[in-house]
């Protein structure tokens, strides 16, 4: 707790001795199946020409922290931003292997996935302290008031970590940008479709503001 406080204080004063300023860690956080890995892939394809993570319609596809170093992006004004992109497993309060069986996995595979997923959630929480900035990726078609969303954002706020909310899947009719904005009025919310690249330029522009 004292370390978190000191890190937050140093971060505010731009004197953070715990991390190199030239080596920003940008984390993608959120609940499972919000589109973190799809967004990570979009960023990496746009700027590195290669994908970063595998994606799936079955929850908890990403079960371990994935890092892509030296992602360099440019905005229209020619300004550059370099960061390490950290794709994290989705944070959840429950994991039921039977859900994976219902999605078509075999029992042994489902149990293995569940076990790995629990470790993934623990790792995601532990890594919160290492982030310099975080994009919280939410599924804009779902209720934004879930306690997982509130807990993630509350913990980032308590650690003084800058947050950008990416309301993903705005290409779908059910997407409700207004409800995401209403749920988190203190944060900048950018609506995107990571899958189709909709509004991705605005998202990149917001990354400059987030990390500045």
């Amino acid at each position, binding site marked *: 707790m004292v370390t978190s406080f000191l890190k937050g204080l140093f971060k505010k004063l731009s004197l953070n001795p715990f991390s190199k300023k030239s080596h920003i860690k940008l984390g993608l956080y959120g609940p499972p199946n919000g589109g973190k890995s799809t967004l990570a892939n979009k960023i990496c394809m746009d700027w590195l020409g290669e994908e970063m993570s595998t994606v799936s319609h079955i929850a908890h596809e990403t079960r371990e922290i994935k890092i892509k170093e030296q992602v360099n992006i440019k905005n229209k004004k020619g300004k550059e931003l370099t960061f390490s992109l950290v794709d994290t497993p989705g944070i959840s309060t429950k994991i039921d292997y039977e859900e994976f069986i219902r999605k078509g996995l075999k029992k042994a595979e489902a149990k293995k996935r569940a076990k790995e997923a629990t470790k993934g959630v623990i790792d995601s929480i532990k890594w919160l302290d290492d982030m310099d900035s975080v994009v919280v990726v939410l599924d804009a078609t779902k209720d934004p008031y879930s306690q997982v969303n509130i*807990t993630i954002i509350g913990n980032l706020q308590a650690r003084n970590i800058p947050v950008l909310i990416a309301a993903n899947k705005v290409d779908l009719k059910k997407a409700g940008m207004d409800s995401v904005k209403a749920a988190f009025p203190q944060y900048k919310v950018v609506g995107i479709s990571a899958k189709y690249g909709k509004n991705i330029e605005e998202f990149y522009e917001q990354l400059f503001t987030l990390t500045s």
Partner: protein
Amino acid sequence: MVTFKFVPYYEIESLSSAKRVNKLLKIVKEDKIVIMEGRLRKQEEADLIEITMEEISPKFKGIELSVIYPDKDKQDAIQKLRGVMANALLGNRQGLTIVGPASVVKKIENNPDKIELFTRESKAKGKGMRK
């Protein structure tokens, strides 16, 4: 049958973070739904999720968690000041924390004006509580 266990704030007030989290989790693992006066600290909420993940097994599938808290945007300056003073003097007693076992509670929907708890047994709306 669904069993609710009320945990008044004074029961957790003097406990360390780890003991608070373990106390709630112990009740939940008895298939009871905790209704706690007040709320956990932000870090404790994350700890609760973390420890829950460590405890996941074929029998224990996790928790459903929700916190109802007064909407500060709807409070005037005096109400906000009272809230700050009450928190400083009495601890974080404002609001309610609901934690249930995922095997019993299917979903807790929490929007600014109400909280709804759906249980697995009935497959339908269980209890509705308004702020």
